C-alpha cells in the first residue's frame, strides 16, 4: 500500500477483457494489472488532458489553446494537412496516433486558479485516465499542476507560463516547458532597446506584485543596466488593481524617460492604456522622447489595449508573421480551420502536444521516465522557432526570442505586432543553476 495508484482505465479494460460478468475479486492494483506507470494505455486509444482556462480573465487565451490542441489531435490522428508534422525535423510521427493508438482527449477548466487547476488535472488523471496533462496560461497554475503531475506520475507539458520559476526554483522532472521566460525576455530586449533608445536612459518600473512580476523586473533591470541604463524607481502594483493612474501620474516627475510595465493580462492592458492616456508618449524628458516598454506581449493583450500598443517594444515567444517553413505551415493549417491566425499561446500548446507525441514514438513507450529521457537534450527544428534545444538540466526549451513592436498601421484585428528582431538563442542562454531548485528524479507513478 505504499505506492500510489491512479490507474483506472487500464484496469477496467483488462477487467472487461477478463470477461467475468459477475463480481471479480477486489484487487490491489499494485499487485498486478498495471504496466509500471500511471494510466498506462492498454486499449487502442490514449487519453491526453488539456487543462486550459475556460472561465475567468484568460478564457479567450484558453479557447485559443484548446483550438490548437484540437488541431494537434487531428494531425496526430492523420487528419487535416498534417501541419507542423511535415516540417518537424523528427520524422517519428506517422499520422496514426501515438504508437498506433488513436489520440483522444479530455478538457478541463483551470479558472486560472491553482486549486481549480489541480482539481481539474486530478480528475483527468483519476477519472479519465489521462497519461499527460498540458495547458494553462499563468505561472501559478503551471507550477501547481507541474507539482501534481510529478506526484501522480504523469508528464506535464506546460502551456503559456513565463516566470523563471517554472523551470527554475520550482522545476520538476516530469514537467517540460517550451515557452520562453522572463530572463530570456530581458536578455533579448535590452540590446534592441539600447539600439533604438540609446544607452543613456532612465527607467521607471511598474511591477505586478507577485512572483512573475519580480522575476521579470529583475531580468529587465539587470540586462538594461548592463547596457548603461539607470533604474530610477521600481514600484509594485497590486494584482487586483484596475486603475493605474496613481502609479503613472508621478512617473514624469521622477525624471525618468522610459516606463517599463512588468504587467501581464488585464493588468498590462489597463496600465498601458492609462499610460498612453496620460500622454506620456508625446512628452520630452531629458531632451529625449518618452518611451514605454512592455517586456511580455501577447496578441490578445495587444488586442485589448487597441491603438495604445502602436510603436511599443516587447518580446514574444512566436508570431504568426514569421516566414520560416514551420510557422507558415502552422498558420496555414490553423488559419484554414479557424479563419484567423493563431496566437503564441496556441503555437506553444500545439508544439508541446506534438513534441510529447514525438518523444513517445521515439521512446517507444508512454512511460513518463522514458518520455522524459527522450525529451531531455532533444534537438529539433521546423517548429517555428528555428533550431531548438530541450535542455536536460531544467527541461526548458532554448530557442530564438522575438522582439516585437506594436504596428502603426494594422490591416486587421490580428495584425497588431510586427517583428523587429529575432534574437539568436546564444544571447538568451543562461546557466541552468542560476535559479536554484532541484529537478529530482522522474516519477512513473504506480
Amino acid at each position, binding site marked *: 500500500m505504499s505506492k500510489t495508484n491512479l490507474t483506472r482505465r487500464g484496469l477496467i479494460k483488462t477487467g472487461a477483457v477478463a470477461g467475468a460478468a459477475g463480481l471479480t475479486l477486489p484487487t490491489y492494483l499494485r499487485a498486478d494489472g498495471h504496466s509500471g506507470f500511471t494510466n498506462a494505455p492498454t486499449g487502442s486509444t490514449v487519453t491526453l488532458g488539456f487543462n486550459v482556462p475556460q472561465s475567468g480573465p484568460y478564457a479567450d487565451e484558453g479557447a485559443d489553446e484548446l483550438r490548437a490542441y484540437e488541431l494537434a489531435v487531428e494531425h496526430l490522428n492523420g487528419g487535416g494537412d498534417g501541419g507542423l508534422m511535415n516540417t518537424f525535423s523528427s520524422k517519428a510521427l506517422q499520422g496514426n496516433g501515438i504508437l498506433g493508438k488513436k489520440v483522444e482527449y479530455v478538457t478541463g477548466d483551470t479558472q486560472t486558479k491553482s486549486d481549480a487547476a489541480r482539481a481539474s488535472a486530478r480528475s483527468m488523471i483519476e477519472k479519465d485516465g489521462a497519461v499527460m496533462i498540458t495547458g494553462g496560461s499563468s505561472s501559478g497554475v503551471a507550477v501547481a499542476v507541474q507539482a501534481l503531475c510529478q506526484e501522480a506520475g504523469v508528464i506535464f507539458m506546460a502551456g503559456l507560463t513565463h516566470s523563471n520559476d517554472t523551470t527554475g526554483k520550482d522545476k520538476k522532472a516530469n514537467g517540460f516547458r517550451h515557452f520562453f521566460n522572463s530572463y530570456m525576455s530581458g536578455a533579448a530586449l535590452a540590446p534592441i532597446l539600447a539600439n533604438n533608445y540609446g544607452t543613456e536612459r532612465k527607467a521607471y518600473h511598474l511591477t505586478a506584485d507577485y512572483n512573475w512580476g519580480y522575476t521579470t523586473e529583475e531580468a529587465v533591470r539587470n540586462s538594461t543596466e548592463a547596457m548603461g541604463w539607470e533604474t530610477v524607481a521600481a*514600484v509594485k502594483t497590486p494584482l487586483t488593481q484596475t486603475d493605474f493612474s496613481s502609479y503613472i501620474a508621478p512617473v514624469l516627475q521622477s525624471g525618468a524617460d522610459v516606463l517599463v510595465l512588468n504587467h501581464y493580462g488585464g493588468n498590462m492592458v489597463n496600465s498601458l492604456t492609462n499610460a498612453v492616456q496620460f500622454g506620456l508618449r508625446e512628452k520630452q524628458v531629458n531632451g529625449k522622447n518618452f518611451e514605454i516598454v512592455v517586456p511580455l506581449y501577447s496578441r490578445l493583450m495587444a488586442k485589448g489595449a487597441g491603438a495604445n500598443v502602436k510603436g511599443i517594444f516587447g518580446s514574444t515567444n512566436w508570431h504568426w508573421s514569421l516566414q520560416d517553413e514551420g510557422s507558415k505551415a502552422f498558420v496555414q493549417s490553423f488559419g484554414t480551420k479557424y479563419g484567423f491566425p493563431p496566437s503564441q499561446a496556441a503555437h506553444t500548446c500545439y508544439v508541446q502536444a506534438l513534441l510529447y507525441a514525438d518523444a513517445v514514438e521515439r521512446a517507444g513507450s508512454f512511460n513518463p521516465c522514458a518520455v522524459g529521457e527522450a525529451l531531455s537534450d532533444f534537438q529539433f527544428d521546423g517548429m517555428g522557432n528555428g533550431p531548438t534545444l530541450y535542455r536536460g538540466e531544467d527541461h526548458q526549451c532554448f530557442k530564438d526570442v522575438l522582439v516585437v513592436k506594436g504596428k502603426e498601421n494594422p490591416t486587421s484585428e490580428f495584425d497588431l505586432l510586427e517583428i523587429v528582431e529575432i534574437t539568436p538563442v546564444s544571447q538568451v542562454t543562461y546557466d541552468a543553476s542560476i535559479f536554484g531548485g532541484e529537478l529530482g528524479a522522474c516519477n512513473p507513478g504506480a
Partner: protein
Amino acid sequence: MEAIILQILNGLDKGSAYALIALGLTLIFGTLGVVNFAHGALFMIGAFCAVTLSRLLQLSHTVIDDSQTDFLGNPLKVEVPYLYDIFGQSTGDAIIDWAVPISILFAIPVMIAIGVAMERGLIKHFYKRPHADQILVTFGLAIVLQEIIKYYYGANPIPTPAPDAFRGSFDFGAALGFDPNVIIYPYWRLVYFAFAALIIGGVFAFLQFTTFGMVVRAGMADRETVQLLGINIDKRFTLMFGLAAAVAGLAGVMYTPINSPNYHMGMDFLVLSFVVVVVGGMGSLPGAVLAGFLLGILESFASMREVLEFLPGLNQIIIYLVAIIILLTRPRGLMGRKGVMEE
C-alpha cells in the same frame, strides 16, 4: 509638493468613480433595503452599452482589395463601415470617434428599462426576504448577466477609446506656475470627474428639491407611514431602481475609455463599492459620496513610492485597513443612520 497635489487630483478622480458607483448602490440599499450584488453587473452592462453602440456604428460590409493579401495569402477583405457610405469617410469617422459620448443617450433608456424590469420581475419579490436570500439571488443574476456578456463579447478586454479631441493631458503645472510636465492629468479623466460631479449633484437636487424626491426620502425614513398616507410608494421605488441602474450604467459608459471594458469588470468593482457604501454609512447618500472621495484619495497616497518604501504592501490593503479603522471608531460608518442593516 507637486507630488502631493498630483495625488490629491488623482484621488479626486478615482474617488469620483467610486462615489458614482456607490451612489447607485446606496440608492437601492437606502430606499429599498435590498443588498444588490448585481450592481456591479449594471455598471458592466453600462460599459457594454458603449461597446455595443460603437460596434453598431462600425457595422461594415466587406470589399475585396486585390492589391493586399491577408495572412493566408488570399486577397484582403477590407471592412467598410456603412456610415462611410451614408456620410462619407470624414463625417463617418467623426461619428465613430464620438461613439462613447453618443452612448450616453443610448445607455440612459436601456439602463432604466433594465433597472425597472429587474425590480418588477425579480427584486420586488425579495423585499420581505432575508438579506441572505437577496444576496444569493442577485449574485446569481450577476453571474448570469456577465456570462451572457461573455458569450457574446468574449473574455478579452475591448478597447473603446475616447474621442480624439480628449486625447492627451492637461498641464496643470504650467497653468499654476510649476515646471511644465510635472502636474499633468488626462483630459478624459477630467471629463469623467466633471461628469460624476454633475450626476451626483443632479441626483441630490432631484431628491432634495422635487416632490417626487421628497416622497422617496420620506419613504426611506418610514415606508409604512407614507403608505398609510395613501401614496403609492412602490411605483416610486421602482423608478428609483431604474434611476440607480441608470447611474451605474452611465458610470460604466464613461469609464470605458479609462480602462478597456471586459465582462468581469463589475465583479472587480463590486467588493470595493460595498466597502465604500458601508464606510459611508448605511442609508446615507452624502456618506457614500464622502467615503468614495476619502478612499480614492487615501488609495492614491498609499500608491506613492515614497510611502511604499516605508510600508511595502500598504497599497495592497489600504482600502480595507481604512474601512476597519473607520468602522471601529464610528459604529455606523461616516454618516450611517441607526438601525439600517444592523440586524
